[in-house]
């Protein structure tokens, strides 16, 4: 037996002990503050209101209604054969019916302009896993992905942590509403070249998080030319595609690929999930759609590490295939989000705060530069802290999204009911009023 005075210090891996999980930013600190002191209308009216989490609960009632009207959905099994298929079934292809249901839903979101092949869908437990998987597949440790700023703070973790891949920002500026430009792409690529870092792909979020805008066609064309010229992959994270306020304003990369007759499509991959559009983040349903066969095959095998519960697939399959339901859901969801967005923007405008003109998503990209003591990142962080501590509002500072200009904040409005939203807006507006007087 081992001697009692032996001092063990069994070593762990670099991954376990590093901070590349990227969770040191205010983005996550705000969540923790909320967890410690969450707002409740009755029990904790002075608590922190969560506006830092992009979750969609505005259309939850539609989902609930569907479940009530279709009791068989939650009745998971009918017979031994079905049980065996369901509970035992761990095929990384996923249920055929569910993959078809996903493509049907994705086509519905794109207004029928795009045709998807369900054989090209690889299911993952959430878009988080899908993004990481694609990164593993297209890049080696030490390689880089180009990512336009500002971007979702989670990418620092999801794309880099276990993969060992770097992110090179493609800087965007308010002067053109943070749109991606050819110059910005070229600059980022050149920077990587200079540092001897091989660039393997460009990852865009369309519609953008945190900007809340859909990427326009001309910009997409530039992007396609860029990736072709540089011979790199394109990952289009389209998890907010069902949250564009109006379907005419959204162009999926799938549309571009189709219009180009699938020319050079093998570099294009789409990430989707039910977490935002359907408001089902707890269900962990994500998908990769790739036009590249090797990527599909590899992703499928790699998805062994992140399979979607067969029970969940079985449960959601009929709902997503029900075109009446999905049509109505998508339309209602879009309308409600649009109204919320306009409501928030208008209230803010009334007290002198401008937001970026957005047309999608669960948030506003708010310009709080006028409130900064100094127009620096430090000034922004000070403001963020004050808003969290004094106003008890968790909003996400642009610096955590790698925004090039201080003063921008992402403000989520879809996780709360309208009463809570009013409370939050009241806190902001009364603060603004006080400030005006002083």
């Amino acid at each position: 037996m081992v001697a009692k005075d032996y001092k063990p210090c069994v070593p762990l891996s670099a991954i376990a002990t590093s901070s590349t999980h990227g969770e040191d930013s205010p983005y996550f600190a705000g969540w923790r503050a909320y967890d410690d002191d969450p707002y409740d209308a009755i029990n904790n009216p002075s608590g922190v209101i969560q506006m830092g989490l992009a979750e969609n609960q505005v259309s939850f009632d539609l989902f609930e209604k569907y479940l009530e009207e279709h009791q068989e959905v939650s009745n998971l099994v009918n017979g031994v054969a079905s049980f065996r298929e369901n509970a035992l079934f761990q095929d990384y292809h996923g249920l055929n019916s569910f993959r078809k249901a996903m493509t049907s839903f994705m086509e519905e979101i794109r207004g029928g302009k795009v045709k998807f092949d369900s054989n090209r869908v690889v299911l993952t437990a959430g878009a988080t896993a899908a993004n990481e998987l694609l990164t593993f597949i297209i890049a080696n440790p030490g390689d880089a992905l180009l990512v336009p700023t500002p971007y979702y703070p989670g990418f620092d973790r999801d794309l880099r942590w276990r993969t060992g891949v770097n992110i090179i920002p493609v800087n965007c500026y308010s002067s053109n509403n943070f749109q991606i430009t050819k110059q910005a792409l070229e600059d980022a690529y050149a920077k990587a070249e200079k540092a001897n870092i091989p660039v393997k792909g460009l990852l865009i979020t369309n519609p953008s998080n945190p900007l809340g805008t859909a990427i326009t066609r001309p910009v997409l064309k530039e992007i396609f030319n860029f990736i072709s010229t540089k011979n790199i992959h394109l990952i289009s994270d389209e998890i907010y595609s069902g949250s564009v306020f109006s379907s005419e304003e959204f162009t999926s990369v799938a549309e571009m690929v189709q219009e180009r007759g699938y020319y050079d499509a093998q570099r294009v991959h789409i990430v989707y999930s039910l977490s935002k559009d359907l408001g089902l983040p707890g269900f962990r349903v994500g998908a990769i759609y790739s036009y590249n066969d090797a990527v599909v095959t590899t992703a499928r095998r790699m998805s062994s590490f992140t399979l979607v519960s067969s029970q969940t697939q079985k449960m959601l399959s009929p709902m997503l295939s029900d075109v009446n339901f999905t049509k109505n859901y998508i339309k209602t969801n879009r309308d409600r989000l649009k109204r919320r967005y306009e409501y928030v923007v208008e209230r803010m405008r009334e007290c002198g705060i401008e937001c970026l003109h957005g047309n999608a998503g669960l948030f506003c990209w708010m310009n709080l530069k006028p409130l900064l003591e100094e127009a620096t990142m430090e000034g922004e962080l000070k403001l963020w802290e004050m808003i969290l501590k004094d106003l008890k509002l968790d909003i996400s500072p642009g610096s955590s999204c790698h925004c090039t200009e201080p003063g921008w904040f992402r403000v989520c409005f879809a996780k709360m009911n309208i009463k809570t939203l009013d409370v939050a807006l009241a806190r902001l507006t009364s603060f603004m009023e006080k400030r005006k007087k002083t």
Partner: protein
Amino acid sequence: MTRASRDSDKSPPEHNLSSSRLKSDGPEMRIIVPLQGVVQGRGGLVLGSLLPCALFYFLQLYLKSRNRPSQSRPSSPPPLSTPNDHISSPSSPSSASGSSIHRTLSRGLLSPRVHPSVSSRAAAIARPDEDSSYYVGLKRCREDAYHRVDNPEGILQLGLAENWLSQDLVLDWLEKKAHGALLGGERPDELNIMGLTTYQPFDGSNSLKIAVAGFMNQVMQGSVSFDPSQIVLTCGATPAMEILSFCIADQGNAFLVPSPYYPGWDRDIKWRTGVELVPVPCRSTDNFSISTAALERTYTQAKKRGLKIRAVLIANPTNPTGHVLSRETLIDLLDFVTEKNIHLISDEVFAGSIHGDQSKFVSVAEILESEGIDKTRVHIIYGLSKDLPLAGFRVGVIHSYNDTVIAASAKLARFSSISAPTQQLLTSMLSDMQFISDYLEVNQQRLRRMHSLFVVALKQLGIECANSNAGFYCWADMSRYIKSYSEKGERQLWEKLLTVAKVNMTPGLSCHCIEPGWFRCCFTTLTEEDIPLVVERIKRVTQGPK
């Protein structure tokens, strides 16, 4: 028993078009491309898609009959070039890593001159698993699965360690209680549906952790209690194992693994972590038990090669040999890892599948509690795919006494979280202790029965099995039926079993067994009535012409 037909949910058979490589400038394209352009111009999307597709299809048939390479049409999404393969099977030989179907523009014959590469990790994974008979066998069995009525000449599946013996019990529970459990709200700790849809803790809900800890305790017959706060839940034991590996080893490091071992580890652990697995051979003369001497030897050899060993990885009960590790073995292992200051990973997924008389499972956790050893180096992997027939629901467990491992794993679990409604359902099921107790008892009886019937049946064929008291399989010695006592001989026998006897068994070579001729035969996907059929089939090889 009717074997479950998975055809309804299997991916559709591969389209003819897609099994071939495209050429961008073959003569066929020169006919079709302008045609498509014309059709699309006048006929719109539907005609533009359908007509060329149809023409192409017929063209393909014609070309195929002339045995020439053919192409496909881009007006609908390009079909896949590889046949869809099951979780345990390799891709078809036609899939090469890093290449893809070329597409052409309708307005020209341009094709991209260069293609973006995939990573070396991906390239390695995308390669066909020609070397792993474990996966090849599973795949071929899928493609020609036995069915008593529809395909009586199909391949009998003895290569998949799934337990179908007691599904009826779980089914019964689900039928009665699933609906209520899912929509919840009855018990104070149950979420209503809104609670299920929102973001959950990525490493699993507290209620499920508590329920799982309780279940593990029940499975191990109360011999050890597990602290839910030392548990991280993941969508399957596969990601649990990978996440744990990421936490305790860096790329290029290695684990010592007593062999023969579960073939899946070669994939699950090595792929993305870059961690090597170094087999520590065990011998039939010792009934394949693990010896410290062998560990020492392998450790020293690995060190000489410049490999840094970070852990010893064991399965307890063992797979494929199917026995429970003794207390002494566990203590020896703990001494070894302590002395080397490395980790011990104990994969205990079969802990609840003990069928031997007088056999009692001892978890490494039990030893730790009684022996006062540093616990921070010991980690347990568990899951619900074996002891309960719920592989599709995806539930895996990392149990560690190391707070840093738990903290890191909990964060990494975001890539592999369990679906919330599934968590809710299982919390309910696992908390039903009476049901679990009944299930474990009946299941054990059925396992015991099938195991003894199967061993007897194999004995009648002259096939002896290693003594086993756990798991879903027998570890059978078929060495007298291999032509040459070598890996090649074993491979030939395996091939014969698959093609002549039409029985899929897992050959020892895919489990890194150093003695040729051993095969893992799972009996839990059979009924008693199937056993005579299995015997008849095997006779085709054992008694047929050599």
